[in-house]
């Protein structure tokens, strides 16, 4: 679905490439989480996949980048509407400013595509139900909270039924309920064959939901693999990514003999609880305490 071949890009004002020699294939129906330090190229990668970079920012790309078989260098951002949904980090920047209620805001993109009214209503109501926005339907997009605006931005992308969803820290301002709804929605999308590229700093949900984690460092892919491998890599902090506390606790417990040597380090609560329970059990047996 997404295919980069030896892709590099330098911005007009940049002294060094924002992305370097990216080789990446994300198949249909995969949730791929991208992590990395500030300035590692995450926003640029999101921009390239969604067609914003370099068409609206300038920049000199080499190599090739394709989404759904289309060569992005020859595709205008407007041609990707309906194909790629982008949810930006600051939801406020994404409001149309032209609509007076959440329901109308959600319908805005569909109106522009000329989708018929019955279909439009069906899609908008379904997305509001999925994201817990139904009770807010008639409020202005400007009088809801920051977190609710974030859900609205995600909803505005979802109603378009894109084949690829690109989300930049989609749950950063959400409470546990809102974040849970968003990730449940991403799982539903995966089941429907939608490709999801997720940019995150907080790793607990990506560790559970993502099929794959990609680490960017200074514009390059420095690690790529399943969450259990990448997120337990001892170099993670060097790459500017905070390890999960579960992983840190197990690594330090292992130094005290309180994590079994042959057990992989955990990235989820369940794996951590199982591992520590086993360690406590064997400590009792071994020590006869």
């Amino acid at each position: 679905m997404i295919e980069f071949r030896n892709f590099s890009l330098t911005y007009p004002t940049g002294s060094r490439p924002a992305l370097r020699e990216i080789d990446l294939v994300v198949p249909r129906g995969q949730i791929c989480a991208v992590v990395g330090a500030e300035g590692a190229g995450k926003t640029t990668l999101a921009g390239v996949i969604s067609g914003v970079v370099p068409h609206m920012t300038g920049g000199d790309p080499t190599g090739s980048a394709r989404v759904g078989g289309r060569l992005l260098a020859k595709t205008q951002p407007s041609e990707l509407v309906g194909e790629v949904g982008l949810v930006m980090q600051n939801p406020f920047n994404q409001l149309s400013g032209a609509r007076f209620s959440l329901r109308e805001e959600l319908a805005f993109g569909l109106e522009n595509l000329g989708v018929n009214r019955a279909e439009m209503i069906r899609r908008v109501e379904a997305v509001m139900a999925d994201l817990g926005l139904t009770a807010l339907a008639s409020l202005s997009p400007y009088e809801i909270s920051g977190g609710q605006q974030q859900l609205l931005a995600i909803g505005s992308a979802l109603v378009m039924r894109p084949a690829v969803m690109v989300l930049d820290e989609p749950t950063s301002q959400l409470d546990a309920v809102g974040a849970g709804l968003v990730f449940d929605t991403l799982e539903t999308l995966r089941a429907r064959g939608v490709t999801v590229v997720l940019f995150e700093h907080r790793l607990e949900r990506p560790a559970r939901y993502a099929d794959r984690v990609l680490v960017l460092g200074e514009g390059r892919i420095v690690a790529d693999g399943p969450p259990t491998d990448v997120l337990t890599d001892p170099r993670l902090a060097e790459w500017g990514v905070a390890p999960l506390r579960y992983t840190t606790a197990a690594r330090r417990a292992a130094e005290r003999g309180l994590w079994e040597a042959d057990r992989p380090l955990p990235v989820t609560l369940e794996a951590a609880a199982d591992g520590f329970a086993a360690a406590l059990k064997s400590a009792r047996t071994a020590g006869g305490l």
Partner: protein
Amino acid sequence: MVLRIDSLIHRYPNGTTALAGVSLAVRAGERVAIMGPNGAGKSTLARHLIGIARPTSGTVEVDGRDATGLGIADLARSVGFVFQNPDDQLHAATVAKEVGFGPRNLGFPADRRTALTTWALRVTGLTAEADSHPRHLSFGERKRVALASVLAMDTPIIVLDEPTTGQDHRSVTLLEELVGDLHKKGKTIVAITHDTDFCAENFDRIVVLAEGRVRWDGPVERWLEGAEDPSVSAFEQPQMTRLGRGLGWPAPVVTVDSFLDRLTDHAETGVCPPSPRPLNT
């Protein structure tokens, strides 16, 4: 009390009641985290502290002065507010000018302005970006510029709205050090956050808002015990708290260090540790 809020009600023109009678007193030097579900009234409450929202009824006292009688510029000497979205507050052509704007506006003498600006850039990790245009920086960096520009105003009270959003490992570490440093300087820090790990590891007191009211107000560890406020279960608790509970420990742990201490006790004695050790040591 550096902040005293009494029976504060805020109703928006459309009839929505954002705050339904909030009372809260904060002592100078406290580190208070305000949590609550989306739409609970957290940001509205913060807006009252800087005068961009005014009470429908009730009172807000900031630094010993009745905030309702004060202008926004006057309150800005007492409360520095770092917005959730940095783009709401950035306007200058370079990072250094942005950060220098506040102290200049407050009429500080040149040497104090320079000292504050230099310090604010350093503690936010932005010294090398002093001459950059804020719009050319990443979202995380712009958030730190917004933070630096508030720090440079040297206010006794600092309010942070979702400070960890968009911040990488290094920046969160800087932020944690900064909260500690500001606390040592006697500043009062109020943070609105959903990040329970950040809150539990760096703040002393938690205020939980729900539907415009204070649901819980007290020490973080007591809140995490959950007995006194069942609403705690609606929050994503710190990773170590959930893990400790998963191992059957009765008292909550918050940090990796306290978890490892408790784990060692458990392994040595063979029983669940009954009483908590001091947290955040």
